[in-house]
């Protein structure tokens, strides 16, 4: 039996190439970790779909079990879980996040 919240999450991450589950919105992040994740994506100029978990308690809890990851923000690229803001920062500093987006054809045209 599929968890209906997990089904909703699966639908969201299949509908958008890059999804950030975060607290608050990209303009008004409600947490330092979410803010950092938004800054990295905006710096890379990668379009993303943001889901504000503070507006949806089901997703706020469901995303943790869906990803088996205890914290928010969480980044998904092409349906795959990439990590939270610490991993995004480590990958960004190592150039791996740029490679990931480029490899998936998501890098913006320069």
């Amino acid at each position: 039996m599929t968890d209906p919240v997990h089904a909703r999450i699966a639908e969201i991450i299949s509908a958008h190439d890059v999804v950030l589950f975060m607290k608050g919105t990209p303009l008004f992040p409600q947490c330092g970790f979410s803010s950092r994740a938004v800054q990295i994506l905006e710096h890379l100029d990668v379009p993303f779909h943001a889901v504000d978990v503070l507006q949806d308690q089901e997703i706020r809890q469901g995303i943790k079990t869906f990803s088996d990851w205890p914290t928010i923000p969480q980044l998904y690229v092409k349906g795959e879980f990439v990590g939270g803001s610490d991993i995004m920062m480590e990958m960004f500093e190592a150039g791996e996040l740029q490679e990931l987006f480029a490899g998936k054809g998501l890098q913006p045209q320069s």
Partner: protein
Amino acid sequence: MPMSAEEIRRRILAALPDAEVELTDLAGDDDHWSARVTSSAFAGLPRVRQHRLVYDALGGEMGGRLHALQLTTIPRTRA
């Protein structure tokens, strides 16, 4: 009650006995921590799995009693 530095360190060491754990109190409130964890257990693992090892060590308290932990994992390679 927030999780103390001693408890964070103890839990990580219980799961990863060779770990070197550097904790920094980010906000001076005993509640927002930065941890740099070095362990041979991370060697060869993708970052997500390295971080999961630490989160598992903290026993489901991440996002609960331990509400902010900025985590850096460093694989220790044998010399």
